[in-house]
């Protein structure tokens, strides 16, 4: 305040621009300038003509509580990167059986939709398509492999599904059992699918 009042003295010559009133905290001090006319030059320098707060002046602003942002928006606004997840996490057997269950489930649903769509919209009945496949003259091994591939989702989803149903009942939840039943699932799937592929 003192400094600004002193400065005022030196600025008296210039017009009372808004920048000078900006310096002076209140208009009241304007009247008191004459008292300080004999003082030495002020310590603080102020740039000419610009409204600038002097360094020692403390300004108080009303407290505005920070606007609440949920976790994602706050972090995205801060531009923080997301740590890698899917690409770096180890593919554990349990996670792979779980996602395998989901994928085979979607595949089976797709089979069902395709079959029903085909029955509805494709012409000429199922015999024509059976004879088309027969006319392709695929070797026995190719047919076997194709049947295996088509049947694998069924087998895996079925046996894994039983495993997950038992989890929901509270059984086979210890890690040893989880792994043992996973291997059992694989074995059973293999056996059943190969059996049906032979038929």
């Amino acid at each position, binding site marked *: 305040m003192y400094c600004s009042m002193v400065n005022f003295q030196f600025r008296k010559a210039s017009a009372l621009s808004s920048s000078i009133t900006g310096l002076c905290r209140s208009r009241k001090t304007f009247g008191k300038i004459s008292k300080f006319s004999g003082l030495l030059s002020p310590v603080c320098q102020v740039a000419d003509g610009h409204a600038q707060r002097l360094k020692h002046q403390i300004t108080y602003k009303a407290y505005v509580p920070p606007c609440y942002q949920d*976790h994602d928006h706050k972090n995205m606004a801060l531009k*923080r990167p997301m*740590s890698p997840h899917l690409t770096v996490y180890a593919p554990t057997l349990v996670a792979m059986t779980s996602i395998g269950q989901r994928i085979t489930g979607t595949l089976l649903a797709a089979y069902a939709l395709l079959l029903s769509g085909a029955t509805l919209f494709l012409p000429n009945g199922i015999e024509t398509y059976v004879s088309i496949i027969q006319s392709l003259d695929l070797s026995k091994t190719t047919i076997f492999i194709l049947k295996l591939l088509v049947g694998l989702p069924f087998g895996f989803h079925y046996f894994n599904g039983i495993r*997950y149903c038992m989890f929901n009942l*509270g059984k086979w*939840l210890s*890690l040893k059992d989880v792994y043992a039943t996973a291997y059992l699932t694989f074995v059973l799937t293999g056996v059943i699918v190969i059996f049906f592929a032979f038929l």
Partner: protein
Amino acid sequence: MPKLSEQFYKIIRFSFRNYSSKTETKPKKDVDPCRTFKIYRFGGILSKEQPKIQSYELDVSTCGKMVLDALIKIKDKDPTLTFRRSCREGICGSCAINLQGMNCLSCITEIPPAKTITILPLPHMYVIRDLVVDMTHFFNGYDSIRPYLVRKNDGAIGKTQLAQSIKDNEKMVGLYECVLCSCCSTSCPSYWWNGRRFLGPATLLHAYRWVIDSRDDDTEQRLYELRDSFKAFKCHTIMNCSLACPKGLHPAKAIMNLKRLISGLDKKPVPEIDPGKFKSGGDSGSGKNKKCCP
């Protein structure tokens, strides 16, 4: 493709070694002590740089055998490396990292016998700097399940001892030891995709701990609060949590029990001893007449 199956076998061996009841056999092959540590680096939002992986060469025979020792040794060389740590004994849960693709506590995990060791921050968390991540939503989820004892019609808790039988206390073994390191929650793909509404294995483990505590009276309300499609039921029994837990706990089992309680298939058993057994008859306001605390 062959590399993927190799990874499978490594994880299977890792899991069986850690969770089998047989005595552990030490790995036979000796690895050269000069290892390469590949560590995720990010200078913070003000540095305006992209996250990257930086390689450090370290002779592990010059530092302690835990990953945290290696990190501290690397920090001696490169002081800008930033990571959380506190107790160095696996009880505080600060130093959770992603090591070789699996989450663990760096202070209690030995440096694996591999030539290259990859250290990343916990998966699917916003990175503040290097290996330090923003855990706010994890702790908010934990606070939301009211992790404290609630007694009804009891006056102030803490005036008398609440009685609990040994069998009822044993129900909480494997639940109270959770240190909230979030290794399990950050290993769960369901928590990655639905982390804001799904509570995650750690919080659900604690929710179960408070539900089956025989001294807690507010079971109905606790279970009612968990009754929606996301809070507990977004758990699809992926079981990554139980594999990741550095304390050897089994969140998946606790969550299954909790789900059965929420859906009403199971009921919480009645406490064997009445918890208010030691309360002296007639509550006095000041408590000066009570026998326990002078």
